[in-house]
């Protein structure tokens, strides 16, 4: 680890960078995850390759998916399988002394069985020091959905050890931009949170912006310029059905869902200036929440679901403001520099994350809402679009690499970044989906 990492935070883990690969003519261009920084304080865990009975499909092994998920979280340091002294798949074959000798705190073992078109996994997690089983479960999935099975096991393991729900089964929405036949091509894509199983949901020659997940994970709201101007659409993922929800003169942008999924916050400038509104989706009824000559935009609900954070330049430059309720007086949150924008609060009311300009660079920073203390989380310098994992433990954002935009994942309490090979085209505007049961 570098010295900087040690000084930055006790909890610096790793950065996982997701770069879009240039798969020409592929409808399923996937993001590549590259782990760029290791972890000092990560928990050592042995994910033993699962035994298999019956034919398994080609592709990543379930235990490999679990190993990669846990690595990506930054909170675990899985033992490479080649260093294991044995490959048990049941409790009776687990020799705790061996694992202790290897410095492991946890051991995950399991077996996979195929029957017809389903695969079932029986797996167990052990605490090496206490020599106890702390998790045992059977789960199954269709033979084509082994990634779903892997992410499910990762979630369970993560929760059993940390006490916090895992977010590996969640999804990511993002926008890619490249050039096709001499014209810009924007694509709204949805993938697993590790960048795999990406699917294109919308393609346009005009910009697509600001994807936002509905609380049930079934819909995305976003801004599309397909009609020549910014218009807000709601898109049902299962059916592909799209509804134009806001197409007023001027801006229709920055959609954000309410907790009940029945209304959207949005920025409209139909009366001449960018203001924040709440729209009831069933009736289309609008409530104006700000009324100021300044730019007011990028609104999002706080953890209570009653108040909102938003960006306003009413003090001269963009700063983060909070309203305790929709008719409360806005209170300024950020003071650390001239430019702070696009707030994203955690689910517990502890922190708000945002884009922060320091000198000439743009970083992701967060402010502790109780103490007002501000911490800069990233070292990269053109950072945008922070999005918090639904369990509050990880942060994904877009940054520049050369002339391209790439996505980077860091732990939410401090992070390092990056350095990855050049990719073709941009990937930007990540939105981390909710945990859906």
């Amino acid at each position, binding site marked *: 680890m570098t010295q900087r990492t040690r000084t930055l935070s006790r909890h610096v883990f790793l950065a996982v960078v997701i770069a879009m690969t240039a798969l020409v003519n592929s409808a399923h261009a996937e993001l590549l995850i590259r782990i760029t920084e290791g972890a000092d304080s990560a928990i050592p865990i042995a994910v033993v390759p699962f035994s298999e009975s019956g034919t398994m499909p080609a592709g990543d092994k379930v235990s490999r998916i679990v190993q990669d998920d846990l690595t990506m979280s930054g909170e675990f340091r899985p033992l490479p399988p080649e260093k294991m002294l044995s490959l048990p798949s049941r409790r009776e074959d687990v020799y705790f002394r061996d694992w202790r000798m290897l410095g492991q705190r946890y051991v995950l073992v399991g077996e996979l069985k195929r029957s017809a078109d389903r695969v079932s996994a029986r797996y167990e997690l052990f605490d090496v020091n206490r020599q106890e089983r702390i998790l045992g479960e059977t789960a199954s999935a269709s033979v084509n959905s082994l990634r779903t099975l892997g992410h499910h096991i990762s979630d369970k393991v993560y929760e059993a050890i940390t006490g916090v729900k895992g977010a590996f089964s969640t999804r990511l929405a993002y926008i890619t931009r490249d050039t096709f036949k001499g014209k810009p091509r924007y694509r709204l894509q949805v993938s697993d949170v590790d960048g795999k199983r990406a699917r294109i949901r919308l393609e346009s020659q005009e910009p697509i912006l600001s994807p936002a997940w509905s609380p049930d994970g079934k819909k995305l709201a976003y801004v599309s*310029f397909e009609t020549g101007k910014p218009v807000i659409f709601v898109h049902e993922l299962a059916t592909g059905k799209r509804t134009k929800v806001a197409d007023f003169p001027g*801006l229709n942008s920055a959609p954000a869902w309410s907790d009940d999924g029945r209304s959207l916050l949005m920025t409209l*400038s139909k009366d001449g200036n960018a203001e924040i509104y709440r729209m009831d989706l069933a009736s289309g009824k609008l409530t104006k929440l700000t009324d100021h000559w300044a*730019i007011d935009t990028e609104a999002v609900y706080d953890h209570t679901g009653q108040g909102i954070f938003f*960006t306003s330049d009413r003090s001269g430059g963009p700063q983060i403001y909070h309203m305790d309720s929709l008719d409360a007086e806005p209170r300024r949150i950020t003071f650390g520099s001239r430019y702070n924008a696009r707030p994203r609060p955690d689910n517990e009311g502890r922190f708000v994350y945002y884009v922060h300009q320091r000198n000439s660079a743009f970083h992701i920073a967060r402010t502790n809402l109780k103490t007002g203390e501000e911490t800069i989380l990233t070292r990269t310098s053109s950072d945008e679009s922070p999005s918090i994992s639904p369990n509050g433990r990880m942060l994904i954002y877009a940054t520049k690499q050369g002339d391209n935009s790439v996505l980077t994942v860091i732990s939410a309490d401090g992070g390092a970044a990056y350095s990855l090979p050049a990719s073709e085209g941009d990937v930007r505007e990540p939105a981390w989906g909710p945990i859906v049961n």
Partner: protein
Amino acid sequence: MNLSTQTKALALLLSVGLFAGCSTTGETMDEGGAGTGSDVSAIDQEGGSTVYGGGDEGGVSSSGLTDEEKQAAEEQAKQAALREITTFYFDFDTSEIKPEAREVLVAHAKYLASHPQQDVRLEGHADERGTKEYNLALGERRANAVKRFLIVNGASRGQIETVSYGEEKPAVMGSNESAWAQNRRVELVFK
């Protein structure tokens, strides 16, 4: 006299940078066969009106015009030349119209006022720095600033449409001060 010398002479005479117009002008002169020099016409690209400039040393052409007419023609040519400029630049995170843009925008406003059938779209842009949504609002504010200026100077509200692209459509690729400066802009698009 070769083409470029003629062009220079013409530019000098008109004492304004009639450059975009000059490409048309130059061709006309070339085809017309040099020798004496002759009336030149600069076709105004937007309005399609014809503007006559003064003659060169040959001095054949302007004989039919009175001094007042000449002055008016020169003023018209100057206005048309100003209107060749359709992109206006801004400082970071501001929407203030720069002093050097005012004369040009006044020329556009006058033109719109005298051509009520002419519509214009103002496309506001921001550089890539900062957040996309804030930049979308900033691009709109820049377009609105230009819109207000045009209206104050005679254009009518109904002729003007605004759209913001935020940071989505840079004029110049790259992440440096020069690219950013060229991307913080409002473009006038005449329809």
